């Protein structure tokens, strides 16, 4: 029998901004948030792959989320953006990848009922990779379907 004090089911998310949109990632998939460092260029990469970043000596491929989702860049001060840009290292069972984003706001715990079926999120390819939308403290945010993003963004032999 559940205890009377058991908290309501909630989800922990990492809130961030990529290009002009607010996004959220399931925190369980987030390994760490790093400052952007120099990327090692790889030949014949699609535009959404920035290259490799060294995370404690290990090579981590980095995907530019704004480019991949085709959500455009925000019209903010480039110097300010360079200061706030971060790489969020995420992992699932198969891949370990960095997501380049323009700003990380922090963790957000939301009750499960605040995770809504995506209806309002639009723009670029974003809708296709949105598993839910939440009305957070900074407005509407798309909760990314990370495994779907990784599967679509990964490099296959036929990639250009």
């Amino acid at each position, binding site marked *: 029998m559940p205890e009377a004090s058991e908290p309501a089911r909630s989800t922990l998310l990492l809130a961030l901004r990529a290009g002009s949109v607010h996004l959220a990632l399931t925190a369980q998939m987030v390994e760490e948030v790093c400052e952007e460092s120099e990327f*090692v*260029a*790889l*030949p*014949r990469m699609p535009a959404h*792959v920035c290259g*490799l970043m*060294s995370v404690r*000596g*290990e*090579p*981590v*491929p980095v995907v530019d989320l704004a480019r991949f989702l085709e959500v455009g860049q925000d019209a903010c001060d480039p110097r300010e953006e360079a200061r706030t840009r971060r790489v969020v290292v995420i992992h699932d069972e*198969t*891949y*370990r*990848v960095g997501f380049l984003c323009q700003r990380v706001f922090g963790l957000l715990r939301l009750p499960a009922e605040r995770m809504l079926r995506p209806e309002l999120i639009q723009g670029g390819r974003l809708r296709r990779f949105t598993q839910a939308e939440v009305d957070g403290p900074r407005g509407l945010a798309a909760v990314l379907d990370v495994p779907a993003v*990784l599967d679509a963004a*990964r*490099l*296959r*032999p036929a*990639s250009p």
Partner: protein
Amino acid sequence: MMATFAEPERMYALVEVGPHCVAFCVDDVQIVEDAADASTSARACLTLHQMLGVPGPLNPNPRVLVLASPSMPVSVHVGRDMRFVALPDAARCPLPSFLADWARAHGWSALLRYAGTFALLADRQRLAAMVVAADRGAP
């Protein structure tokens, strides 16, 4: 008293082309010669620039790196700035799974940690097959 052994090392030829650093294991290299002295007519030949998709002319009189291939030797024209370095086996790290299939198909077998960055380690057999195919005009 316990004997200590140095970590085994391998020699690599490192070539920088544009923003990329490519490594060839010297065990895979038959000859390194200046292009002016090379008799490449009997061999399939390609420039590393073409393989990497990097525009721009080669340096004057580039070096030619002849790879030992099971079917036939192939030549890769590389720039002048080639270095030989000895690196421990620990410097070799596997390709991240996110790009492993893609990288293998493009002729790379692993990454090498070197001077705070990563070099692409060439897969001799795959690269040789690509050079032969490109030399015959295959897509």
